[in-house]
């Protein structure tokens, strides 16, 4: 599957509405065998890309959530020390125990090692890489270029298959140039009204086309307000689900409900205070 239209269709079938740019990025990713680095505001659906990609390829999704202080032993592999100690105690005196203890039986696979040892190439999602430390980033770079892991006690483990790697970043830290250069880059922006309407239609069951369009327009208006936390696609979906659940067919028909359910979109006290009923009215007026 190389054509970008095919990819866009396959993604849509798995529940992700992609723009043409992203479809291009994914087709390039397969052709050039490079990882894809996704950047963008929180809640625009970066992680969803990887999930949809796994569905498209009908393969497993292996996720590595990065955090500060993430190290090799929780990302790559670790020996099962408790078991090793037990085995040594149990077989005290036997000579062969040394060889047994450092065998695969006692090896704990962590996401990165798991990803390169699958028969069918999985999608490896390295989420929020900007939260990990610089050292980990350097180590990851090495793995992403060689696709092999060396374990001192066991030897080098080459990759069985090369996984499809997707990295996401929220921009809380500047990533190194080396890592950026290694990857294809795609900036995930807030979707336009048309795409957001289609996203709501696909993801929220029971939302009618006209309501979806109204919601998308309303959210676009809210995003243009001066807010501390701009609502992402995830928030839009929450709100749409809430409205559908409350049996709202038309936004103009229930302005109070609309105002009350805006809690789904506005996540700080200040934002909530800024969007007064009057502001909601004004926004609703523009939805038409």
């Amino acid at each position, binding site marked *: 599957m190389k054509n970008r239209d095919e990819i866009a269709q396959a993604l849509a079938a798995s529940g992700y509405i992609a723009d043409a740019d992203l479809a291009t990025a994914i087709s390039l990713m397969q052709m050039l065998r490079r990882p894809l680095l996704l950047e963008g505001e929180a809640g625009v659906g970066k992680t969803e890309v990887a999930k949809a990609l796994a569905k498209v390829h009908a393969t497993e999704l292996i996720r590595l959530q990065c955090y500060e202080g993430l190290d090799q032993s929780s990302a790559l592999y670790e020996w099962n020390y408790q078991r090793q100690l037990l085995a040594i105690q149990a077989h005290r005196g036997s000579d062969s125990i040394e060889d047994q203890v450092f065998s695969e039986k006692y090896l704990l696979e962590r996401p990165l090692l798991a990803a390169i040892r699958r028969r069918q190439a999985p999608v490896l999602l390295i989420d929020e890489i900007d939260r990990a*430390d610089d050292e980990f980033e350097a180590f990851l770079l090495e793995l992403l270029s060689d696709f092999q892991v060396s374990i001192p006690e066991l030897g080098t483990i080459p990759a069985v298959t090369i996984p499809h790697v997707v990295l996401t970043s929220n921009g*809380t830290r500047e990533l190194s140039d080396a890592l950026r250069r290694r990857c*294809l880059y795609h900036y995930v922006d807030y979707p336009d009204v048309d795409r957001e309407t289609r996203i709501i239609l696909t993801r929220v069951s029971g939302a009618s086309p006209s309501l979806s369009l109204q919601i998308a327009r309303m959210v676009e208006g809210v995003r243009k307000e001066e807010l501390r936390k701009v609502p992402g696609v995830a928030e839009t979906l929450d709100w749409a689900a809430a409205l559908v659940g409350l049996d709202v067919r038309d936004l103009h028909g229930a302005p109070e409900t609309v105002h009350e359910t805006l809690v789904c979109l506005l996540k700080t006290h200040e934002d909530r205070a800024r969007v007064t009923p009057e502001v909601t009215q004004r926004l609703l007026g523009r939805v038409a």
Partner: protein
Amino acid sequence: MSCCGSSPDYDDLNAVSRLVSARLTAFLRTLRDAGFRVGLAEGQDAATLLSSGYAARPGLLRAAFKHLFSARKSDWDKFDGLFDAFWLGKRVRSRSRTVGSTPGAGNPSLKSFQDRSAEQGGGQLLTDQLCSSDDAPEGGSGEGRMEGSSRAENLAEVDFRKLGDPDQVAQAHEAAAQLAKAMRTRLTRRDLARRRGYRLDLRRTIHRNISHGGVPISLVKRRRKHKPLRLIVLLDASGSMSMYTSVFLRFIHGVLDQFREAEAFLFHTRLAYVSDALKEKDAGRALDRLSIMAQGAGGGTRIGESLQTFNRWHASRVIHSRSCVMIVSDGYETGDAALLGREMAAMRRRCRRIVWLNPMMAWEGYAPEARGIKAALPHVDLYAPANSLQSLRALEPYLAKL
């Protein structure tokens, strides 16, 4: 990647005609000049793309190249313009240099200095002008000359704007750099005392206890890695601050050079990120690059708007939990003072400390009357004078406590 412009080896790609690969090489060079980090591997991949049908439609090729060559949002935003200018012959609005044009011709506007590419091009044109502002501060030459013993010591108390002769300026610069160095050692030494483990590290414990036959007798603990303090300096480079700008630039250069984590921004009517320009080891050259940015607009100061830009685009990247923001400004706001207050409040939520250094504070009869400073003061943790080396030195113990 280096910007040497060497072309990738296309011999194995017979499908790509020689003409196209020459054109591609030129495009890569244009990208490098525009600040893209493009290496050999990217060039080869681009050639592969050209030979595999992506060249059929410009829109498709542009999208493909955009993903391949961009590495950050700024690249992402300006790529389309560059591509159109090079391949489709359209004019670009932002100043970008295509291969063959003369470097840095025309008048360097402030906007162009934000591109790293343009900095190098126009760098030499305006260098001398900042020096002249150093040489001639009003009425400075007479009062600045100290008679008697130990010039270095006296220098510490002299107001920066009264430093007249170039020797004294150089000494002050030197002292500022030294001071930055001293601060760094004090600030980071505190890490050592806190090291005590909180979690068992099995891997290291087993390794250490091999000599006990694997029985864990001496335990190894893991400790939390300590974040060093990060210092973020925002320097006001407007006309009213011009007498102080050069000394503070030197100080900031020292800070960036010595601190493991530090970032610097410059603002007047707009905000510019200058850490990259200041990474230059040679102080003279770094200052040259910067002096251009510092000149930009000598007119008003829009502190509020500059801080808004900072909060919106840079804060989440540069500020972490152990960050100290240092604003060096006289607080003469020509924009909206209420906006400044709001943005200060927003910044206050993010970082640990805000220090506001005001060189005018030590002037006789000065009171914080300016609208800007009045709006900002409620959110500032430390409001201190910074008109002499001594006053800078007095800051150090405070910062060490963070």
